[in-house]
């Protein structure tokens, strides 16, 4: 008697296909996250015994720590500068690159370069641009007789100038998202608005912007998440200074975890940062997709 060949049901097949992915995700994401969550509930500092469960103490400490509150505000300020600058540069750059001009293909390639440059190199480049002793910006202002002496720009503009440096690095990504969206705007719609006598601003607001909405959402989310997570640029340019003016939350996390060995508390701060990023992202989604729904 021939045994009938056993066939997987749809559900079994789906399970069969998805299990490796779940295992992979669990190993690379869930396990470390769960371990970090467990650590965040511990007093986990190899140099200060004993190590042990402290419940929500680390969270209470973090939420009442003025240094954490300060770092959170600095992170939000930094993110605000990065996002605004990246969106403005992104839309401006995309509008420019959407026009027909000689050498446009080359310019489109060159525009990517800042994004390809590592954050470390970006920090070094802007460090020299802002330098009080050799800085290009100071040199230019001085040559134009706009300043009597070279200025300590990074002291004066700390978080804004580091934010601008980061957005220079980030802008190409925004440009390409917006450029892609711009290319989906129907030409006749645009022409029609022109015939109807709409001004350039009105044409942008009523014809172009609706097509940019989702690109904007993506750029806002990506730029915000990346800016909230940024550390290299601040670490290299100002090391959190002057005083604690550029001490972003990631700086605080790094310092607590890797310099002070406070692994439990560092994990707690990381979870708070994750919650903050999630909340920020949710706000974007709600605001930008509300009308569409």
């Amino acid at each position: 008697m021939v045994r009938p060949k056993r066939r997987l049901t749809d559900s079994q097949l789906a399970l069969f296909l998805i299990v490796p992915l779940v295992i992979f995700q669990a190993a690379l994401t869930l396990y470390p996250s769960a371990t970090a969550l467990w650590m965040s509930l511990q007093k986990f500092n190899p140099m200060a015994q004993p190590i042990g469960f402290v419940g929500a103490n680390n969270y209470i400490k973090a939420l009442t720590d003025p240094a954490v509150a300060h770092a959170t505000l600095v992170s939000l300020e930094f993110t605000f500068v990065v996002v605004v600058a990246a969106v403005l540069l992104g839309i401006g750059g995309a509008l420019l690159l959407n026009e027909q001009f000689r050498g446009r293909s080359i310019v489109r390639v060159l525009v990517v370069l800042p994004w390809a440059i590592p954050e470390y190199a970006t920090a070094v480049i802007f460090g020299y641009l802002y330098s009080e002793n050799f800085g290009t910006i100071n040199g230019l202002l001085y040559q134009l007789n706009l300043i009597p002496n070279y200025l300590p720009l990074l002291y004066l503009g700390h978080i804004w100038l580091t934010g601008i440096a980061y957005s220079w690095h980030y802008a190409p990504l925004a440009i390409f998202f917006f450029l892609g969206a711009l290319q989906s705007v129907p030409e006749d719609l645009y022409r029609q608005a022109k015939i109807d006598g709409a001004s350039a601003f009105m044409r942008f607001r009523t014809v172009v912007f609706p097509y940019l909405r989702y690109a904007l959402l993506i750029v806002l989310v990506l730029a915000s998440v990346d800016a909230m997570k940024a550390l290299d640029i601040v670490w290299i340019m100002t090391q959190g200074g002057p005083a604690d003016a550029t001490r972003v939350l990631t700086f605080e996390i790094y310092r607590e975890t890797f310099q002070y060995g406070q692994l439990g508390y560092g994990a707690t701060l990381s979870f708070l940062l994750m919650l903050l990023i999630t909340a920020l992202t949710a706000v974007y989604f709600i605001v930008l997709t509300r009308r569409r729904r």
Partner: protein
Amino acid sequence: MSRTKENEKDKKSKDANANVTRRQALSKMGMAAVGAAAVVVVGGVAYYLSSQPPAPPPSITPTTTAAPTTIGPPVTTAPATITPGGKPVRFNCWAFHPEIIQENMDIFNQQYGENGELIQSPGDYYGSLETRLMTGPASGIDMMYMHSDWLTRYYKAGWIQPVNDEEHFDEIRNDYGNKKLLDTVIMPDGKQCAWVYFNGTVPLFYNGKVLKKAGVADDTGHIKSAPKTWDDFVQMCRDIKKSGASDAPYWAKWGNCGTCGINETFDEYCVSEGEQQFDPKTQEPTFENDTVLHMLENMRTLMAEGLVSKGVLATSEQDNITGFASGKYAFTELHDYDLNQQNDPAKSPDAGWYHWMPNQPGKKGWYPFMGAHYAITSHSYMKRSPNDAKRVERLHQFYSWKDKNGEYLAGRKWIKELELGQPYTKFYEDPEIKASWLRHMDEGDFEVRKNAHMNAVLTPSIYIGCVWFAEYHGFLNDVLPKMVLGESGYSPRETLTRMVDKANELRKTYGGAEVWE
């Protein structure tokens, strides 16, 4: 008949292909993926097992062999019966001229038939090192660069092997010119935990060209009368500013660097005043006194009167070096080997005008120790075999002391190439080495440097014994900039109180002297 069979076979085969649904294809692909994963896992386990070190040899019989020497006395090399090879001996280093470190490693491998390897840790050295060391043998680190402060921390964690039982222990110690260097490596329990990689100090330097313009240096750019106290120093800065020679004469090393910013400079001021800051035995803060208070007041005065640019508060260590080389400033404190950059015509318009201050201002005028060490990871922690332990010891002494031929190979190279100070007094008498130092300083500076190196002291209670120094230093970077900027709640008196409170809080968290009992 056979043709018919073949046709049927073909047909079946075609039918089978035609009937392969997406479901079946996916199932097969899934099976293949699982099979591939299994192969990878099995392969990985097999590779791991095969890469484990071989069993240690039955015994080690130390023998000594004489070796030729060029500088030092005849040296007995490590036992000839040490079996080289096997698991590589690994040296974890930061990325300061790795080509020199690699060159030395190549020589070591050649001389001893070894397979030593470098692990470079660019960026935040201790951030990555500490997390690696937590993993024990998996870290794969046998020897590493260390600073005194982290040495304390890692020794307390059980990661560092004391060197007291190393062969040639007494010979090496006797070779050191400045015996105070031993303070930088001896832990509160009396164990010595490292050998010196380089030693130096963080003195005040001046730009003779600016001082000459201000009338406080002679025509050759040598200071006429060096300030004896920090009050004198502040006054000299005022005079220079008033003369117009420099807008902000003191390019202070007051940045936010974890261990080499305003925190290190504050330590330097303390050392020059003879202030140890903490009790060496109990680690209790001892700095709540008028001397330290006045020092803080001076720092604030320097900033308030514009004698220091506010820009220094956002500088890195490198900014400090390049900034002073700009020729705009009269004074700064630098790691002593950085003078070579100031006096390099390719890097500074005032090259040749930079000098050591003839003396450190302050009641004692002491120079702070600044340098680094070679430490080895604990044999028991790393589960090292006795033979491998000896191989690591040999690597340790090759870099920190002498090579197989009895030469101070690594140390000599560091001086010749980069002017890093070495603990061996006889180097100062060596004409070739002196000539390398004189490339970027004159005879007067050389004598000041020699004296400073021979007498530099550690602030022992900060670095030795306080496993919590990193947090304390981070805290100094938080409060001192606010104090110099005159922020509310950060007067010198209030800042001093905050510092004492922080030190006591950390002692409470981590434990004081009892930690070492």
